[in-house]
């Protein structure tokens, strides 16, 4: 006899989502469906018809967890549409911003899973460690991009300004001093994840790796011809779920994919493990990748070099692609500037890629582990939501006009 277990909303993640699991007599999940129930973000519609510089300013507000990746994906999409050649220093400063921001974001996830894996006596240690890493990482974003949360100085054509030598030396010194702390933090997390005793094989999926680059992101990876998007009704075989799910299902080469730290590690760092433990391990290890890249950039940065290119805002009609490796996966923004205004805009954000994959990842194990599988992906729903609930009574999603490219 099959029974349905529903977790709604799933907790310690950004936004609201539901996990519906069909389980057998032993409580083992035979079918897992995960879907967003967060209302529409709508920002793409808001920027249409506006000046191109508006897009990054609006779109960074898509999500309060990933404002930096969204700023960068948005600005890169506009840059690409306007055919801008970025100065070298601007590229470095953007990558520095992302590295620091992603380091900060991964630390936040350890705060979210603390009650899952950290024993009472280590709780203060773990939480303080998260706090310390975040403080330094966000300080970098503050200084380089103007604001830690909604950066004001990432501009179409580059960055508003370079940092001073004093700032460069300060950041370099502080990030160097952070190395032993991050190393200790990573060791702590790896140890705690191991001790948690997640069942072997939990959360293993075999979907294609959707990762464009080791760190920053590569727009050439995102081939629009290989991308399709379908409505939830045709993806979920449960009509109730299909009706209520608020995101479209993005497919690459016709299948659902895996994005995020493990996908990047597997594709670019020779990482071979899969599943829940592998998600946690790769995310923790990636903190070191980000930190060392940030230090490397601060070492080579020429603080007297220009950071802003001349931009012709009239546009070339080209469909620009911004592809940024956000903490939770590849964040793609598409923008087309026509006659000096944004003519078309669409964002395909990290968690959207993982949503169809996360549900099935719960299958084959006891439903008690279901929420752990979801949290291992660190989902972030508010930016992922893409379609509109039009009937408030039954929460059904009956119009799909916001999703067509």
């Amino acid at each position, binding site marked *: 006899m099959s029974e349905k277990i529903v977790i709604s909303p799933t907790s310690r993640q950004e936004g609201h989502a539901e996990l519906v699991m069909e389980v057998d007599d032993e409580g083992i999940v035979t079918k897992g469906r995960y879907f967003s129930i967060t209302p529409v973000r709508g920002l793409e519609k808001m920027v249409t018809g506006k000046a191109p510089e508006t897009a990054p300013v609006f779109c960074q507000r898509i999500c309060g967890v990933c404002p930096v990746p969204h700023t960068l994906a948005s600005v890169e999409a506009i840059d690409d549409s306007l055919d801008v050649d970025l100065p070298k220093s601007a590229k470095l400063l953007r990558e520095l911003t992302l590295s620091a921001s992603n380091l900060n974001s991964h630390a936040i996830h350890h705060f979210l899973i603390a009650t899952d894996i950290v024993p009472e006596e280590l709780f203060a240690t773990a939480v303080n460690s998260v706090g310390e890493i975040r403080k330094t990482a966000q300080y970098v974003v*503050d*200084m*380089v991009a*103007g*604001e*830690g949360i909604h950066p004001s*100085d990432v501009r179409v054509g580059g960055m508003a*300004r*370079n*940092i*001073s030598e*004093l*700032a*460069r030396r*300060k*950041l370099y010194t502080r990030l160097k001093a952070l190395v032993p702390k991050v190393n200790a933090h990573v060791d702590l997390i790896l140890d705690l994840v191991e001790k948690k005793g997640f069942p072997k094989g939990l959360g293993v999926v075999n979907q294609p790796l959707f990762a464009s680059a080791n760190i920053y992101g590569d727009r050439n990876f995102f081939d629009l011809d290989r991308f399709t998007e379908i409505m939830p009704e045709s993806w979920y075989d449960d009509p109730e779920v299909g009706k209520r799910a608020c995101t479209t299902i993005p497919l690459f080469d016709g299948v659902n994919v895996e994005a995020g730290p493990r996908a990047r590690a597997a594709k670019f760092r020779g990482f071979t493990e899969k599943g829940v433990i592998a998600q946690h391990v790769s995310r923790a290890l990636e903190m070191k990748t980000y930190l060392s890249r940030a230090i490397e950039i601060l070492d080579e940065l020429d603080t007297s070099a220009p950071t802003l290119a001349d931009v012709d805002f009239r546009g070339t009609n080209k469909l620009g692609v911004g592809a940024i490796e956000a903490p939770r996966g590849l964040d793609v923004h598409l923008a087309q500037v026509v006659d000096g205004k944004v003519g078309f805009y669409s964002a395909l954000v990290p968690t959207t890629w993982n949503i169809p994959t996360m549900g099935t990842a719960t299958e084959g194990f006891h439903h008690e582990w279901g929420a752990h599988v979801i949290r291992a992906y660190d989902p972030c729903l508010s930016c992922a939501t893409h379609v509109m609930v039009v009937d408030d009574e039954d929460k059904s999603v009956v119009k799909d006009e916001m999703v067509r490219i």
Partner: protein
Amino acid sequence: MVLGTYKDAICARATDKSIQKVSQDGGIVTALLSYALDEKIIEGAVVAGPTEEMFKPEPLVALTSDEIISAAGTKYTFSPNVWALKLAVRQYGLEKVGTVAIPCQLMGIRKMQSYPFSTRFLADKIKFVVGIFCMENFPYASLETFINEKMHSSMDMTLKMDIGKGKFWAYTDEEELSIPLKETHGYEQAGCNICKDYTAELSDVSTGSVGAPDGWSTVLSRTENGKSIFDKAVEAGLIETKPMDSVKPGLGILEKLSDGKKTKAVDEIKKRVEMGLPVPF
């Protein structure tokens, strides 16, 4: 209190000849900011820096004494120093910032410190604010009118501008030109007519020429921090002082001007309110 709250009033000037040569009055602003920088009380200061155009300042995040000195001298037009404070703690990387501000800018700074909207992590990094006295400020075009049209000189020829003894002065290599202050009336920015603060009451230390003899400044130490920095700079021999009651014209004139500014502003505010115009206080 007509001069705001202060702990000490004293007549002073910088002892360093290289500061005296370029400063407006006693070089107090330049000496104090340089001292604070040398003593690592601040890591840099936002000042009204020079630009290509004479007497048209632009906020400068100064990281060295030389840069602070390059900004010495009064520019009687706007330098939005408050704007650059955020720049100083962001891309310039300062965690201890000093600045120089006219009274209205100080109101902005103190308000921003109380309500830090769009200025996260800035309030607590402002460590030292030197205020300068201010009766009014002019759009750049007004200065051009005074110099070019009324004095028949040019900006490029002008070495220094000054207000004092009822006149607006412009010094060139050869001449001391002046027009009566009355002739500048109406050329100031409209907001100055409702401004009640003459002596930078919200500063740590404020300073101006009024009350002191030529080449000297009147200094009001206002906060604990301001007084301590000023006193230490005096102790270090960077600033020399004379008791205020030993100099002419003395504090009385400052009190008179400050009182006059407040009274006139209150009248003007009343007038504007009666006409239904918005006033910020």
